[in-house]
């Protein structure tokens, strides 16, 4: 397969750019594409690969043309036939044929025989990077021949590195005699898990043991507990015995005591209780008797001590009654009187004071001064009214005064303002106002100013526009007057001119072409003529004659000789015929040429004529234009042509516009001035009508003046109004004042009348209402005070009367009683009272004593009876008991009771002892106790106590042990931890399994690959070695004689033979030489591939950066060699390589990727 044409229709920075490699040449198919940097060389390679394999989903070459429009076209030669393809960017059906119909990708891929994109790039392309990597790989492979050959063929420079990496990755799992492999680690983990499990799990045997231990501990504990119980029981028994012994001793003592007591006898029931009772009774009776005697004595003596007083008793009632009535009054009066007297005196003072206030201190009858209610009320009313009347009067006066002042003020103001210019009337004022309003709104002065400015501007513009037409002699008016060609006419000229020009060009070209044609035809005719056809004619004639003669001869003779000569003559004739026919052709051809020549000549003449016509037309048009231009501005067309004319016309238009504008502006100015004048006139007239002479003032000043007049006029009107108002006011005020005065007078009269009816009105000048009011108040008080004094006096009198009555009665009583009647009544009454009381008390006391004495007698009688009864009882008892006195009887009973108690105690003791020893009967217990050895028992007790303590300790220990055993057993627990560890272990085993299988796979694979590479080497080495050796010799310019292989540990090693003897290992070569070696190997690889029958284009991208010219030459030689079997394309930006390539391979085709100024890409063939 080779590329005939690669079209970068829309790809990268290219648009419709094609590299035309042409059909397959006879010699080397070597192409050199030259372009400066950024001209698109790598784009070319990328485009080729994209054409073959499709444009990737994300292409870096879409920066100019978006994805949808990207397109690569190509014409490929495949299998001897030319085929067109196009590749666009699309997910499916991106390959198109010449008619833009989709093709399957296999259409191209089949030619490549399954080589993928990456493989293509690796095998059939080469750039600086790959060259360097290739050089490195020669080092890395350590010169291994198989790897080098294979990697050169497959273009896989990093083969060794990859194989090493795979080996390393296999070794992470396992390596013989290594310790830290993946396998070892996994096995370590297995061991760890096993240990873990052992640590936390309990084996069945251990469990058995733990259970047994727990059972044993339990048994031991129980045994110890039992033993302890036994010992404790024994100890208890001993203690009981020891406790019982003292009891028995005590009991014995009791028995002894009992012996000394009387035997129990039968006594009547209740005796024991009776006796004490009698004893108590005896004592009681004695006591009572003594008490009674004493009491009798006391009573008698008391009674004797009482004294009687009958007189006082008789007066008691009378005295009481007196005390109740007069006595009480007397007592209160004694207290009150001083007070009351004081009060009376005060009241008197008060009255006196009041009288003074009234100014009538000498009045003897205060009561006469009082004024009755009616009169007082009348006075009150008048007094109330006074203040109102006074106030009103004052106010009316004040207001009147104020209003008079205001009136005067207004009059004054009016007088002042009236002194100014003559007043206006309403109509004139209105007119002025209207005019002023109009002036304000129209603002004629402002308008004038604006119009003036505009006029100035337009003049300036006019001047500028005129300046553009510099050479024009006249002014704008003259310019306007010119007659100019219309735009339609100009357009017409332009088109005619263009047509004429075009025709001229065309006909000139035609003329040239036809001239060439004529020349050619003439030459051909001459050439033909040279061929001597006339001779041929003659020869043909002669041959014919000869043939006829020979035939005749042969016909006559019919022998071999004549046949031969006839044959010869026939042949000659045939040849001559042929020659003639050829020449007939020639003649025809000549005739043809002559015809054609004539025709062509005619055409040429025609063309010349047309050309002349076109020239004339052109000249005519130009002349017209020039004439028109000169009419306007001489020399214009000559300088600037038709375009100049047009421009000039345009500028003229502008001038005319400016001219018109200036005129307009001037008109506006005039109008504004007129407006000002008219306004001024109107205003002046109006003012004059009002008597104002305002001469020669500007409109503004005039307007101001008018305004002022108007203002003042309205001011005057206001003043007058105010004056009228104030006059009205004043009138009202005066009326009010008069009314108030009248009211006041009326009141005064009434006042005098009211006063006259009382003592108050006695003076010549009537008192003021204020004074009267006060006096009325005082009179009120006076009344009260007088009343009060009178009441007091009355009271005092009564009290004194009572006192005297009482005093008389008391003295009477005192006399009856025989007491002294002089002295104060109070103490006297007291003495009387106390005496009476004393008498009463004594009487009562005596009565009481009598009663008591009577009771006493009764009690004594009862006591006697009781004593008798008691004696009888006592005697009975003592008899019964056989004793003399009760006391003895009591003692006897006591002893009997004691004996009873002892009996009971003894019985209790026996019971206790029996119980304590847990015997069935007391006697049994007695027997035991009797036989006891106290000392031995005490000793035994100590021993048992000790033993019990020891056993306690032992029980605690055994209990602890038992608990521990139970805990250990429980700690075995039941949960899933062990199961989890088991699961982890199984997982590790799975990992080992996977790892081992993967290891074996990889190891087997690597071994297989290495073996295969060795086989490959063996198969290909001879051819490749030879080619590589040749290539290396070439490119090293003979420095190295070639390459050989030497056996080495794992195969063979590549060796470079130095020219003239000696050798070097591939890994010992210098860097540059290694590049060359790599290049030689790649070249050999390409040849190897091509030897298989197919070839594909090989593209190298500027690999000779580091080559000097000589090396470059040799490299090109190698490429040229490759180009003999396949298409080789070299991309470069070094121009100097072009001549080198051409020198090495003259058939090389150079293609350029160049730029021109206007940005177009031009591709020219150069050979």
């Amino acid at each position, binding site marked *: 397969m080779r590329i005939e044409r690669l079209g970068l229709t829309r790809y990268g920075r290219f648009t419709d750019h094609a590299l035309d490699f042409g059909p397959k040449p006879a010699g080397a198919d070597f192409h050199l594409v030259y372009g400066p940097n950024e001209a698109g060389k*790598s784009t070319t*390679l990328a485009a080729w690969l994209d054409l073959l394999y499709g444009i990737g989903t994300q292409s870096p070459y879409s920066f100019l043309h978006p994805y949808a429009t990207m397109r690569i076209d190509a014409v490929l030669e495949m299998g001897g036939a030319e085929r067109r393809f196009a590749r666009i960017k699309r997910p499916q059906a991106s390959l198109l044929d010449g008619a833009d119909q989709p093709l399957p990708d296999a259409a191209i*891929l*089949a030619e*490549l*025989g*399954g*080589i993928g994109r*990456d*493989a*293509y*790039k*690796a095998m059939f*392309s080469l*750039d*600086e990077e*790959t060259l360097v*990597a290739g050089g490195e790989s020669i080092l890395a492979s350590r010169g291994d021949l198989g790897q080098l050959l*294979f990697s050169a*063929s*497959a*273009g*896989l*420079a990093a083969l060794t590195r*990859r194989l090493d990496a795979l080996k390393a990755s296999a070794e992470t799992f396992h390596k013989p005699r290594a310790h830290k492999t993946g396998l070892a680690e996994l*096995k370590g983990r*297995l061991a760890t898990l096993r240990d873990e499990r052992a640590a*936390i799990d*309990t*084996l*069945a*045997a*251990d469990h058995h043991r733990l259970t047994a231990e727990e059972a044993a501990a339990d048994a031991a504990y129980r045994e110890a507990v039992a033993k302890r119980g036994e010992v404790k029981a024994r100890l208890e028994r001993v203690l009981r015995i020891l406790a019982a012994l003292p009891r028995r001793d005590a009991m014995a003592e009791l028995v002894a005591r009992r012996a000394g007591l009387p035997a129990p006898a039968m006594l009547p029931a209740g005796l024991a209780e009776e006796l004490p009772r009698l004893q108590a009774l005896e004592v009681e009776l004695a006591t009572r008797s003594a008490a009674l005697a004493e009491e009798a004595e006391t009573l008698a003596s008391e009674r004797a001590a009482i004294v009687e007083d009958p007189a006082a008793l008789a007066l008691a009632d009378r005295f009481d009654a007196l005390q109740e009535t007069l006595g009480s009054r007397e007592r209160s009066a004694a207290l009150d009187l001083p007070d009351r007297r004081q009060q009376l005196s005060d009241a008197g003072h008060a009255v006196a004071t009041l009288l003074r206030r009234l100014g009538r201190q000498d009045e003897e009858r205060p009561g006469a001064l009082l004024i009755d209610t009616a009169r007082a009320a009348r006075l009150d009313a008048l007094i109330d009214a006074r203040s109102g009347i006074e106030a009103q009067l004052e106010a009316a006066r004040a207001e009147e005064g104020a209003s008079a002042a205001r009136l005067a003020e207004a009059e004054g103001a009016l007088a002042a303002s009236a002194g100014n210019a003559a007043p206006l009337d309403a109509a004139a004022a209105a007119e002025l106002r209207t005019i002023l309003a109009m002036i304000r709104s129209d603002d004629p002065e402002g308008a004038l100013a604006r119009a003036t400015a505009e006029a100035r501007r337009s003049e300036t513009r006019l001047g500028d526009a005129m300046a553009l037409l510099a050479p024009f002699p006249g002014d704008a008016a003259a310019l306007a007057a010119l007659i100019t060609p219309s735009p339609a006419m100009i357009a017409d000229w332009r088109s005619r001119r263009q047509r004429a020009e075009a025709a001229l060009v065309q006909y000139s070209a035609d003329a040239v072409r036809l001239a060439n044609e004529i020349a050619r035809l003439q030459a051909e005719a001459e050439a033909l003529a040279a061929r001597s056809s006339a001779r041929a004619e003659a020869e043909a004639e002669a041959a014919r004659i000869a043939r006829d003669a020979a035939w005749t001869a042969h016909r006559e003779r019919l022998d071999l000789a004549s046949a031969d000569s006839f044959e010869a003559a026939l042949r000659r004739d045939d040849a001559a015929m042929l020659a003639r026919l050829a020449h007939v052709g020639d003649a025809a051809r000549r005739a043809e040429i002559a015809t054609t020549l004539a025709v062509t000549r005619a055409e040429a003449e025609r063309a010349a004529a047309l050309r002349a016509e076109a020239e004339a037309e052109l000249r005519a048009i130009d002349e017209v234009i020039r004439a028109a231009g000169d009419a306007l501005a001489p020399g214009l067309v000559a300088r600037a042509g038709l375009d100049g004319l047009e421009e000039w016309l345009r500028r003229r238009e502008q001038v005319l516009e400016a001219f018109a504008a200036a005129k307009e502006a001037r008109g506006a100015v005039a109008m504004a001035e007129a407006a000002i004048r008219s306004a001024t006139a109107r205003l002046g007239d109006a003012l004059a009508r009002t008597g104002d002479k305002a001469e020669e003032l500007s409109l503004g000043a005039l307007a101001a003046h008018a305004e002022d007049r108007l203002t003042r006029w309205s001011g005057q009107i206001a003043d007058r109004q105010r004056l009228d108002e104030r006059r009205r006011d004043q009138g009202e005020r005066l009326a009010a004042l008069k009314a108030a005065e009248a009211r006041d007078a009326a009141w005064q009269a009434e006042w005098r009348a009211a006063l006259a009816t009382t003592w108050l009105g006695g003076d010549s000048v009537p008192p003021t209402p204020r004074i009267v009011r006060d006096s009325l108040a005082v009179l009120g008080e006076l009344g009260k005070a007088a009343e009060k004094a009178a009441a007091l006096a009355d009271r005092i009198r009564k009290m004194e009367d009572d006192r005297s009555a009482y005093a008389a009665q008391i003295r009477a009583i005192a006399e009856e009683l025989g007491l002294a009647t002089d002295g104060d009544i109070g103490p006297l009454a007291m003495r009387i009272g106390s005496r009476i009381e004393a008498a009463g008390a004594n009487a009562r006391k005596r009565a009481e004593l009598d009663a008591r004495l009577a009771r006493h007698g009764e009690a004594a009688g009862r006591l006697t009876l009781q004593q008798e009864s008691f004696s009888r009882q006592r005697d009975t008892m003592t008899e019964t008991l056989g004793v003399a006195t009760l006391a003895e009887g009591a003692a006897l009973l006591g002893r009997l009771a004691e004996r009873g108690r002892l009996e009971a105690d003894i019985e209790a003791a026996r019971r206790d002892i029996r119980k304590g020893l847990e015997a069935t009967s007391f006697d049994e217990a007695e027997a035991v106790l009797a036989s006891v050895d106290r000392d031995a028992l005490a000793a035994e007790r100590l021993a048992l106590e000790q033993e019990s303590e020891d056993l306690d300790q032992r029980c605690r220990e055994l209990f602890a042990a038992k608990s521990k055993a139970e805990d250990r057993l429980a700690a*075995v627990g*039941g949960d*899933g931890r062990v*199961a989890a560890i088991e699961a982890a272990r199984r997982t590790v085993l799975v990992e*080992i*399994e*996977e790892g*081992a299988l993967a290891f*074996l796979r*990889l*190891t*087997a*694979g*690597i*071994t*297989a*690959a290495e*073996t*295969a590479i060795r*086989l*490959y080497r063996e198969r290909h080495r001879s051819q490749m070695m030879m080619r590589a050796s040749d290539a290396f010799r070439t490119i090293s310019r003979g420095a190295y004689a070639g390459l050989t292989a030497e056996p080495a540990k794992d195969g063979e090693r590549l060796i470079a033979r130095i020219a003239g003897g000696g050798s070097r290992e591939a890994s010992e070569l210098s860097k540059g030489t290694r590049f060359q070696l790599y290049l030689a190997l790649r070249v050999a690889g390409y040849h*190897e*591939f*091509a*030897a*298989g029958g*197919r070839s594909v284009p090989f593209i190298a991208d500027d690999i000779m950066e580091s080559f000097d010219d000589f090396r470059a030459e040799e490299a090109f030689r190698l490429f040229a060699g490759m180009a003999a079997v396949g298409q080789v394309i070299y991309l470069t930006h070094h121009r100097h390589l072009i001549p080198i390539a051409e020198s090495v391979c003259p058939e090389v085709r150079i293609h350029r990727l160049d730029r021109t100024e206007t940005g177009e890409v031009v591709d020219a063939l150069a050979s």
Partner: protein
Amino acid sequence: MKTARFLATELKRLDEAGIRVFIIRGNHDALSKITAELILPDGVKLFRGRAEAVEIARAPGERPVVVHGLSFQKPLAPESLLPSYRPPVEGAVNIGLMHTSLDGAAGHDVYAPCRLADLDAAGFRYWALGHVHQRVVHEGAATVVMAGIPQGRDINEAGAKSVSLVTVRDDGAITVEERMTGIAEFRRVTLDATGITEWTELVAALGRRLGEERALTQTPHLVARVAITGATPLAWRIRRDSDLLKAEADQAATALGRAHVEKLELSIGPAAGAAPIAGDALGELARLVAEDVLPSESFRSTVTGAAAQLRGLLPAELRDLLGADEAASEALLARLAAEGSEEVLARIEADAGSGEGG
């Protein structure tokens, strides 16, 4: 003991709930001393070496139920144990427990084999069988159920796992319900990569396939072993980047939720139709490997030697990993060599494009 005691604790729970438990020993626990140490609750009956029939205490009016069982003492049982069982009790629902490989299941050694027909004819109403981990139900004169296991442990125990809840009704009828108890289910999943040309397409197809399987599965968690087959131009890349593909599969599974990819098995080949051309070095290499290297004696002996060395280092449990006998070992190694060389060639070739060429 921990695990055993755990079992005992759980049995105690059943006992406290009043549920009777009947246990027979199988071949694995025949040799165990651990279970001897356990003290089982009262409700649990562990059948001994002699066949017994245990009647379950029920109310007087109800049909009696008798459970028969036999624990075999030895780990190997070449003959049927059925004759050793006690005869069925008249008028009762007889339930039998037996540990047997039945008619012989694939992958299992024979253990107390007996025929299904024999079990049917024995006169029991229900046979509860154990030993084979695949569930089998047979309804005939007797209902015979090999209940399988409640949870699969690896890919060889694939599929949803369950227990069987059997109800004996008052009239003696027996219904069997399968209750799914597995938390995780193993499944083999195949993905046909034929015709897939883009890596992203492959990942998407993988995700889709996992999604389909996930949707079909009722079990809470799905553990898939994905086998990728077919002829695809991506074959080299898949081999080279098998780790990456596994990571993609893991991610797809995580995105699905409750799905996991255990392993990827590759049996893919390059797209057909590419006629190799002479001079294609890598193609030639592959041919050399396939035709000349793999069958060669020296190569085989090298590989066998490496395998033997490795075998010596493996833990005891994996001794038979590389083939239990010579024939199996040879076949396995041949397969490994073929796969391995494909992988290595893929790695060599597929890396070629990066950074080379201009």
